[in-house]
């Protein structure tokens, strides 16, 4: 049985999917790719937007896309250090 992902792992997974999709992804595509329940996903999206990890962009047709902000890139950059730290000390 796969291990339950921690909050940090879930945030990392959402941000990484956005980055891997050329930093522009639609809500439904992101929800499917992240493999998180719909209710949990919308909670994380609100938190990530409020904390300025991601930003909402609309194209000329009004379609909503999400992309990483500078803070989101910074989190991804530091995530490896955070993950290594957690593993190193079994935190």
């Amino acid at each position, binding site marked *: 049985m796969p291990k339950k992902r921690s909050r*940090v792992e879930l945030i990392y997974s959402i941000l990484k999917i956005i980055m891997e999709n050329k930093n522009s992804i639609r809500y439904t595509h992101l929800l499917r790719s992240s493999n998180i329940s719909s209710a949990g996903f919308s909670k994380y999206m609100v938190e990530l937007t409020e904390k300025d990890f991601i930003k909402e962009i609309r194209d000329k047709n009004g379609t909503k896309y999400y992309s990483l902000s500078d803070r989101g890139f910074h989190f991804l950059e530091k995530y490896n250090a955070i993950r290594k730290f957690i593993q190193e000390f079994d935190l």
Partner: protein
Amino acid sequence: MPSLPFPFMGPIFWVELIFSLIVVITCGLIYFQAKKLYDISSYKGIKYFGNAFLFFGIAFLSRFVLRIFVITVFGLRNPFGFLLFNFGYLIFLYAGLMAGFYLIYSSLWKHLKNPEQIGWLFHPIAVTIASVFIIFLFGSATLLLLLLLFFFAVLLAYSSEKHIDKRDKKGIGKLYILYILLFIAFIANATAQFLIRISDEVSIILYTISSLLFLVILYRVIKATKK
């Protein structure tokens, strides 16, 4: 009340000061590195780990202050010095116990439902134990109780290790050995500093081992967080 050791400002005094300084700076570096990562991630395990070293730093800083200002400058026959000594010893014990609790908790918190609520219990428990030591048990009984606490810490560390997923177990065993050695170092320091007279040679060996343990942890922190 048993007689307490009186230090002299010989070479061992300076060795102790340098040792305290190394441990305090090392703990400070570990704490700030952990805090930096916690500010980005809000991951509780990192916070508890950082807190453990914040309290280790406070414990060794209070030991340093006790050594210089209280025991050496005032002396324990001076009522003011005696009062300050007990207060300093209370801080030393409280901070050392808090450090131990947080270090164990940094691995155990994942298995609990409300880790933040339980974390607040550490303060009253540590203050109570430290006060009981000082008011009622100053002397050889303190050593016995410290050893009992150490035994409890080892049991907790062992039970935490049993919970670890086998896939993640690689390298963890060594970490527990390091933590156990840290507890031994803290108890040995408390004993050597306040309860038993030990020779200068044994003191130097003890200080060197304690400093090395903290430096090994700092090395692992730097290794884990470097790009």
